[in-house]
């Protein structure tokens, strides 16, 4: 059985017809071509597939595409302006927050949501928030450092036209 799904992905309206069993991650990757979102464990443990659904963190491997009907999805592709990286993206580059990069889209989406919720998190708040995102490369120390650094940078405004000046 297929169903039409209308959703707003990274600010853009999309409409796709998908089998009702299709997972959101497959819809993003294979129906919409947004391969930035990665599949790791497929059981909602590793966090590689993390996206925001109406601003809240979800595992797109555990979410059906039809569940996103009429809602807003933010993926890693939606974090940067055309011209400028989100501070958390820049911080991950400057502070070694990624190595192989496969968990990074999920880490970044989760970290963005953290900073939206708690602009200046403590180390414990970072750890509590980020414990659903596994990373095998970094040992996490540089992820913490990167998020702290991003928190110290001015956050972008939420509207697409008005990102904060650095």
């Amino acid at each position: 059985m297929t169903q039409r799904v209308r959703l707003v992905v990274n600010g853009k309206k999309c409409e796709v017809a998908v089998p009702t069993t299709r997972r959101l991650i497959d819809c993003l990757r294979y129906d919409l071509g947004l391969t930035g979102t990665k599949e790791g464990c497929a059981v909602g443990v590793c966090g590689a597939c993390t996206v925001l659904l109406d601003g809240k963190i979800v595992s797109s491997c555990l979410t059906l595409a039809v569940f996103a009907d009429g809602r807003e999805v933010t993926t890693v592709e939606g974090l940067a302006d055309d011209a400028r990286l989100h501070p958390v993206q820049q911080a991950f580059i400057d502070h070694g927050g990624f190595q192989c990069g496969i968990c990074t889209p999920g880490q970044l989406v989760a970290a963005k949501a953290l900073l939206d919720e708690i602009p200046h998190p403590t180390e414990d708040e970072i750890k509590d928030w980020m414990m659903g995102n596994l990373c095998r490369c970094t040992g996490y120390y540089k992820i913490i450092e990167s998020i702290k650094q991003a928190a110290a940078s001015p956050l972008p405004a939420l509207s697409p036209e008005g990102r904060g000046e650095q």
Partner: protein
Amino acid sequence: MSDTHFVVGKPIGRVDGPEKVTGKARYTADVLLPGFVWGKALRSPLPHAKIVRVETAKAKALPGVLAVLTAKDLPNVLVGRRMFDMPILARDRVRFIGEKVAAVAAENPETAEEALQLIEVEYEDLPAVFDPVEALRESAPILHEDPAAYAFAPQETRPHRNVQSIHHTLLGDVDAGFREADRIFEHTFTTQLAHQGYLEPHAGMVAIDNAGRVQIWTSNKMPFRLKELIAHATQLPQEKILVNLTPIGGDFGGKGSLMDIPLCYFLARATGRPVKMVMSYTEELMAGNPRHPSVITLRTGVGRDGRIVARTARAIFNGGAYAAFKPVPTVNLHGADQAGGVYRIPNIAIESICVYTNSIPCGHARAPGEPQMIFAVESHTDMIAHDLGLDPVEFRRRNLLTDGDRLANGRPLSHVKAKESLDAALEAIEWSLPRPRPFVGRGVAMSHRAIGIGESNAKLRLEEDGSLTLLTAAPDTGTGAYTMLQQVVAETLRVPPDKITVKVGDTDSFENDSGAGGSRVTHVAGQAAFQAATELRKRITKVAARFLELPEEELELREARVVAKGDRSASLSLAEVSRSAREAGVALDVSARYSATSFSSVTSFCTQAAEVEVDPETGQVKILRLVNSHDVGTVINPIGHQGQIEGGLIQGMGFAVMEEMRASDGRIETLNLGDYKIPNIKDIPPLTTVILEDAAGPGPYQAKSIGEGSISPVGAAIANAVFDACGVRITDLPLTAEKVFFALKRKGTPP
């Protein structure tokens, strides 16, 4: 060191940073070719069985299914990374739960999965063996009739047909050494089955073009070797095969095999469409190529003066059903060679046996065999010290390697920094201070590691606009290799790093590249880039000298210009050099090949120390802090370098205290990352790292390697700390609360 350098030693952000933080980087699973279809494999539910019958008609009839293959549709070849003992699809017999029996290609993954359910396989059970020690008994079921007959099988005499390989290392005269001993100690240690834990499961895409060329995209860190192995598996000449390099989503030793690429090829041939296969994480945990479990027995003779006079080591590694995932000529694990640890042992004999069992075939994992062996060696070291009534640090000091000492394999050492590394770690963990409270303990452990060898190539070109393009075919498993190469070229040519574009070639770009692994990339790919840059610098200087009418010796490169050393007014930009070279018909396009075939006498020492607190009620071990000190070469990029140390250490900690692929009669019980626990961000303790830089390595600017340096000692450091904290000795990894709890209970009285 970095003070004397222009850009080497600077914390430059990754060249692949922007694409990796925006989701633009295309990993293998992100390669979506027009018309591609999905491949899936049916796996054996039994550990050892005859295949009586495979019925595929129903699966073939399912709409959307394009091909169903079994072993009879494939050439009768065996494959492997070195020794060819594994079928692409099981033929007549399965030897482990998870072995591939049939494969399907379908229009979408859901249909492929459905088709697998429609394949009927009739099996007839065979007796199975799962324990490597039992597999060596005379009466054990035999997995392979004649392992020595397999192509590239090592030819040492096997004591049993269930032996994949047996490797011996001998220095001195062990019997004579033991006769000198005042005391002899023997202990046995065991370690568990553990996955590399990369978060990108194995993936592959294969397309066959109209000319019959086979194009491969895969998360493989040895693409040139893969080309050779695929040529064998497909019976095609190597020229017909092209392997494209993609970013690799974590390797840690596990991404060097053929895995599903031969199946992708045969499915592509059967369907006429590109075929994509991505393993699920459950398949990874059932049939990846994880770290070998081990049983290690060490026997050590110590003289009256507390010096080690002799040692024998016997390591039995559970290799699983096939030896196909071990890449080295010995088809063994060189971590076993580390049985001497960081100690001067004049007489040492090491035997390392990899054994066939009806279990998941094991492969290489970061520092193959070494975390297992170093856990044994460094626990054994503390146990001996305790029995001798010596402080474990004092016992180590009496036996540490120094310049000129020989390793078990006979190789002499230079630039030995064992003592310095130990001192630095002890200071960092405040070893001499009293423990703050009961049930808190400290432990220390050490290892050292050779700098990897192999071959790599580089092409470097000065472009018309004065920028540079470096072409490499070294894969990046996530370590930051391309940023390292950019810095090496920038340093050599005194050009800002952002003027250098690093392009990643494919297997047509060069004759060869050894790939990533064995801690070689900074050394060999770095040296290839250094040599290319050095040659290009000469040519640039030559062109500029002619143009400026000055002798070459009076010119130097600086800030993307060629300038006269004394008189800065005479200068030429690299863009101008490029133009005048073109006008003169001189190519500013160089190639370099670097190959190291023997190990340097310089190694890297690492000491790790742990402070833990044991809850005597529950056995729970809390790691209060970790420290590690590394004796390293010139650090090229401190962000990447520290990232290797931290990542390796936390992986080692995970192996030590939490990770275990539990199995029962060959059936893995931890089939997802919820059950197979790897460290998360809340598991990491406060960490101190001390870097002891000694510009003595064989790499560019005297760099050494770091990728595998920090994974091995931490397990024994924690086990030694637990003993210090509560007096119980755990000799079986992982070191869990249950084991500590029951050991405390057996012990009875608190320490």
